């Protein structure tokens, strides 16, 4: 009976406590809660709404609901099969001076709304040849598609590269050598340096005629490799941005790996040593499994950061050459800020968010199944 009474009175004091805590909790928390609501959660949901309207940054006309129009303008694709042109006099397939088959131009279809309404508003993205038929892949916004592909390419290359180099750095700075701290500091220095500064400096390093990178490549290859147009050649530009980004970010991964390495108990290595394991075996069977969590965390951080690729692009290439370095965020910036088309930029932001969400989900699933195995 006494305990019941005690319990009752404790619940009563707890309730009283909760009430008084509600006041202090809200008064202390509300500045942050309100600001988050106004400047993060509000705009986040507003973005979803804007993507279904024709909202502009400055407009005399009232905003209208336009349904899925922005989404169609963004992600609609089409396939246009083209047959080679037949020479009417001979009945043979017509060939140009190089002996290549001649195809009608895709514009003749995409601009002909009367006869081909299904292709209206689409532009050529790329083509695929199968037999003599040429399939033109059309996109409502080929630059967005290009940006998306660029983003995925960047992510797929940067993840293993940056994780690998970060791990390498972590391993070399934990060998208990003299000056270990100095090396660690130096490897981390690019991380704390602003991306805008780094990108500006690398723009000079990548200069075709007077660039340090070309100079080092020339010296390293004993003059065999010709100067590369690092930022001006569409097939190289993205690689140049990748190299620079990995250079800037790897130190961060190193720090995470160093912390991870320190958590692996020394006894495991000792035990393996007694069992006759060599350095490589220790690395594969102790170090790598021991770093699993850090590895997963690194993957997530790099992926999300890589999808936000923007500063380097604006400073170094402005999305060029020929949109070879345009990214999703860069495309959003171009439409939202330069064209002041908030609704279209919001649509890009929604798609961008969904991609991040999906990747996050995927990574969670992969880690979960990994743990049960």
């Amino acid at each position, binding site marked *: 009976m006494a305990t019941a009474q005690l319990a009752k009175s404790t619940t009563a004091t707890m309730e009283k406590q909760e009430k*008084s805590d509600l006041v202090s*909790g809200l008064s*202390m928390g509300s500045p942050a809660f309100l600001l988050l609501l106004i400047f993060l959660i509000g705009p986040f949901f507003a973005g979803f709404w804007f993507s279904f309207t024709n909202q502009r940054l400055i407009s005399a006309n009232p905003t209208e609901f336009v349904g899925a129009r922005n989404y169609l303008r963004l992600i609609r694709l089409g396939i246009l099969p083209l047959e080679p042109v037949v020479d009417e006099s001979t009945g043979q397939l017509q060939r140009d001076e190089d002996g290549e088959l001649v195809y009608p131009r895709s514009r003749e279809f995409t601009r002909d709304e009367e006869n081909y309404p299904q292709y209206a508003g689409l532009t050529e993205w790329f083509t695929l040849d199968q037999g003599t038929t040429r399939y033109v892949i059309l996109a409502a916004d080929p630059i967005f598609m290009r940006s998306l592909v660029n983003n995925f390419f960047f992510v797929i290359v940067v993840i293993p590269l940056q994780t690998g180099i970060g791990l390498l750095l972590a391993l070399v700075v934990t060998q208990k050598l003299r000056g270990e701290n100095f090396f660690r500091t130096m490897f981390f220095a690019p991380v704390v340096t602003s991306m805008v500064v780094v990108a500006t*400096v690398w723009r000079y390093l990548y200069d075709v005629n007077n660039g340090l990178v070309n100079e080092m490549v020339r010296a390293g290859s004993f003059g065999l490799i010709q100067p590369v147009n690092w930022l001006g050649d569409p097939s190289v530009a993205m690689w140049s941005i990748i190299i620079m980004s990995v250079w800037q970010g790897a130190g961060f991964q190193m720090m995470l790996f160093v912390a991870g390495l320190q958590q692996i108990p020394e006894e495991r290595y000792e035990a393996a040593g007694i069992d006759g394991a060599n350095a490589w075996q220790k690395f594969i069977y102790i170090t790598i499994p021991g770093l699993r969590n850090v590895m997963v965390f690194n993957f997530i951080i790099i992926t999300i950061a890589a999808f936000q690729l923007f500063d380097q692009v604006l400073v170094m290439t402005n999305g060029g050459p020929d949109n070879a370095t345009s990214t999703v965020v860069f495309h959003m910036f171009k439409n939202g800020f330069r064209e002041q088309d*908030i609704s279209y930029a919001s649509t890009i932001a929604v798609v961008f968010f969904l991609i991040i969400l999906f990747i996050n989900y995927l990574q969670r699933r992969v880690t979960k199944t990994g743990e049960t195995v």
Partner: protein
Amino acid sequence: MTALQPTVSRTSNETRKILMTVLKYIPLLLLLFFFTFPLLFMIASSFKGSNQQIFADLRTVRAFLPVGDVSLDNFRFVFENSNFPRYLLNSVIISAITILLTIIINSMAAYALSRLKWPGQRLILAIIIATLIIPGQATLMPLLLLVANLPSISFADGLSITKGWLDSYHVLIIPFVASAFSIFLFYQFFLEIPKDLDEAAMVDGATRFQIFYKIIVPISGPVFATVAILTFIGSWNTFLWPIMTIQSDELRPVMVGLQFFFQQNVQWGQVMAYATLITIPVLVFFFIFQNAFVKSIATTGIKG
């Protein structure tokens, strides 16, 4: 036992040891070169007067050394022929206010969420954790529209209310001081502090707010340092947002200023001097507070 070992094998053992050490340093030095050469080039070139000199030095190690015809002319040029001093002042003001507000409001919010129990607390915590998934850039466009329409108090001629936050300091500060990530960092730290501390103080009649700033804040130095450092880096490096919201030259922060300076067809050395000027303070700051820096990043990493 060791005394019985033949001397010859001991020397060869020692040579082997030295050789191994040297071998271990080779990859380290190669990596050191790769990770430092751009910044060394930046600093070295900032002292060199002409493009010709920088180009001529490219083929030798002189590219990384401030040697030859060196002077402070580039730095003088940056200070006298550009709006750099103003940009610097802007960035210092913006960073300082942002850091101050960030640590105050987010630590209070985290305290309310971690050590108090009140109805709705779990829900708000869940919402804040959920917002961590939203990448900052995904909300930029609606945010731009929002700040373009928010009312602003103007003291220009008498007290008046104008529309729009564009082109101001507060547009660079207020939208970003509340940070779900900062709250999360504080929250994790505060959870680890024993609850007895609060209860003892409660018995003594302290209010929740008093407990917070008299007991919790003084013992939470590391997490305050972490949030301050991360906020400083973010605020100092901010680029995309000021490009969109700041039009007048007078209000530009340093990173946007660099972009404008760079586009004016100035000499390489002058751009490098500008870049050096805005990088060195951060690097020095990092070298001094390195342990706090690294520890904070590492702990956030492991726990996340």
